[in-house]
């Protein structure tokens, strides 16, 4: 018997793995001289090439390697986004890393490993593949959070993140084991068969309990209430560069994984998980909006903003329709860009050689740095959901999907929460434009940071003019995900 194994759909992962291994050697050789300075650009290049490879591959749905890996349009598009977001984060944070003397070559390597995990996450096609990919994505993030190892805050953040992350992994694994115990299979396709319309007697209660545990584990990775407790502390304690990294690509990957699980094997049992997602989503929106009001540290504020935004994206997931998936993906993409841009600004807040983190430090920025101030205004108005900026459209489409799926109250709650949250976004704009000026920030010679911030601002402003490609991509991804589930 000759079996041929076509590994072409695995190309992005193979590229990333090869790049990681090669760069370890290169970094170890060049460490003393210019380890980080040479590894970071190469890592960015590898990520961009892998993203391009994901988009260029043939997108007919294929399941390979023992049913642990699935490649389709959903996987391709999310892979490209996640990898590009990782590359953008690396560019964004290079100057900060250098200033804080944490620009060691291990950092881009950990980022590459995490990106490999994220890329496998959105391709997961079995519970085992899901769990391992999630671990590969999270483990580098724990190390990164503790990367500033001489700072107590950073090590504390790393330890806290690690312990709580281990707890979440435990819950997820426990849920997987229950689902496996009650169905005897790990593969999503066979789980869908077992739970499909043909299955007698409905979903066994043990599997429902397992599903709830799996959702709890995923909610932790998404930082959704009630599994959000780690977020503000880790965001504040970790170096700002790491916070920027944590807030962007991993969130999108976690949402992709949640969609894979919920709209894949459990699609026919939406009634079982919908109530959990609705609850998590509503709680995240409300808590994110209210707790953000009293924050003085901009990183904590962005943590609560992230919690609220995941709540908004989950509104689309809760709808449980192809339209909802599409809206959630568009929302998450827009959030990703806004977050990168906002962190681009936080990473420029350096005064006389030290980085500052309180919101009050932004006062009167418009008088000295009009362009930077304008960028802040764009991102804050967009996060608040003011038309015609991108953030408005993200929110509009998730609420529309929820209303169409009959979740009117959830949409109303979302609108109310976003009105409350608008207060803290607009307060920053008021500080920047109308308050007396503080000391000026240092001029940073940081081309990567400028590039990413400018591109993000351009995206947020230009989305209203050319929204087509984003919606087309989201539609393609959603179409690849949803009929695959509902057709079975």
């Amino acid at each position, binding site marked *: 018997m000759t079996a041929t194994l076509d590994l072409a759909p695995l190309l992005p992962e193979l590229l990333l*793995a090869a790049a*990681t291994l090669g760069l*370890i050697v290169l970094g170890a050789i060049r460490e003393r001289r210019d380890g980080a300075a040479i590894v970071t650009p190469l890592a960015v290049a590898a990520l961009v090439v892998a993203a391009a490879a994901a988009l260029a591959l043939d997108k007919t749905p294929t399941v390979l*390697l*023992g*049913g*642990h*890996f699935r490649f389709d349009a959903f996987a391709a598009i999310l892979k490209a986004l996640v990898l590009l977001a990782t590359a953008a984060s690396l560019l964004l944070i290079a100057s900060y890393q250098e200033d804080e003397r944490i620009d*060691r070559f*291990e*950092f881009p*390597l*950990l980022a590459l*490993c995490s990106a*490999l*995990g994220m890329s*496998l996450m959105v391709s997961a096609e079995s519970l*085992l*593949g899901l769990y*391992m*990919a999630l*671990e*590969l994505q999270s*483990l*580098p993030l*724990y*190390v990164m959070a*503790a*990367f500033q*190892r001489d700072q107590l805050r950073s090590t504390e953040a*790393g330890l806290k993140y690690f312990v709580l992350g281990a707890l979440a992994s435990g819950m997820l694994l426990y849920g997987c084991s*229950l689902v496996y*115990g*009650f*169905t*005897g*299979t790990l593969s999503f396709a*066979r789980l869908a*068969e*077992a*739970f499909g319309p043909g*299955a007698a*007697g409905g979903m*066994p*209660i*043990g599997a429902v*309990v397992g599903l709830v545990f799996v959702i709890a584990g995923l909610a932790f990775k998404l930082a959704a209430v009630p599994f959000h407790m780690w977020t503000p502390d880790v965001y504040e304690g970790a170096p700002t560069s790491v916070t920027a990294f944590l807030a962007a690509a991993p969130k999108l990957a976690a949402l992709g994984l949640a969609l894979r699980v919920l709209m894949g094997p459990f699609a026919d049992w939406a009634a079982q998980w919908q109530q959990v997602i609705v609850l998590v989503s509503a709680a995240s929106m409300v808590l994110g909006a209210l707790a953000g009001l009293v924050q003085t540290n901009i990183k904590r504020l962005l943590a609560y903003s992230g919690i609220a935004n995941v709540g908004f994206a989950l509104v689309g997931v809760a709808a449980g329709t192809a339209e909802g998936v599409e809206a959630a993906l568009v929302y998450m993409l827009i959030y990703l860009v806004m977050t990168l841009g906002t962190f681009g600004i936080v990473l420029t807040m350096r005064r006389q050689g030290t980085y500052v983190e309180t919101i009050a430090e932004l006062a009167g920025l418009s008088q000295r740095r009009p362009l930077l101030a304008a960028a802040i205004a764009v991102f804050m108005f967009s996060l608040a959901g003011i038309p015609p900026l991108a953030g408005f459209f993200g929110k509009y489409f998730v609420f529309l999907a929820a209303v169409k799926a009959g979740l009117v109250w959830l949409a109303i709650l979302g609108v109310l929460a976003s009105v409350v949250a608008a207060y803290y976004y607009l307060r920053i704009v008021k500080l920047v434009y109308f308050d007396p000026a503080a000391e000026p920030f240092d001029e940073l010679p940081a081309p990567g940071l400028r590039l990413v911030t400018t591109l993000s601002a351009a995206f947020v402003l230009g989305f209203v003019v050319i929204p087509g490609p984003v919606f087309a991509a989201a539609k393609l991804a959603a179409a690849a995900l949803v009929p695959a589930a509902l057709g079975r």
Partner: protein
Amino acid sequence: MSVELFVFWMLALVAVASAVLVISAKNPVHSVLFLILCFFNAAGLFVLIGAEFLAMVLVVVYVGAVAVLFMFVVMMLDINFVRLREGFLNYLPIGGLVGLVLLAELVLVGASWALKEPAIAAAPATAELDNTRALGRVLYTEHFLVFQIAGFVLLVSIIGAIALTLRERVGVKRQDIARQVHRRPAETLVLERVEPGKGV
């Protein structure tokens, strides 16, 4: 009572009892030793159901590595475990409540398990294939991808451990193999004839 049943009860009871002692023992070293006892009994249970590979792995990995690591941590770190346990009982009401809820869930789960057949049965074991060989076959074929990801997770842990703990220290005497090899006896070795009863 058959021999098998007797052995099962013996192993199970000792495992549970030693697990309780792990958390109730005052001396942390005793805790670790009870943990090792618990592992050995669990390994015995695995042997009993014919999973000899898992039993071996449990002993090799958990007893041989993890428990020894715990022992090192307990003995080398200056942690006051008695103080750590102060106020432990304050959490009993809420912890007990959570435990009860979980227990109720598990009972529910167990009850439904007894009633229903699994939707898809696990693959039947074949007689001529032993455990280790069967595991090896699926590990390197069906679960190849997962196995490789596990390898990458280990790689990350190595990079992480180095990134977080390696420090360049000055004034450390390091081994320089090239210098060692290039040394010649004439440079370093002096033969002395020592008279009896005298020093050098």
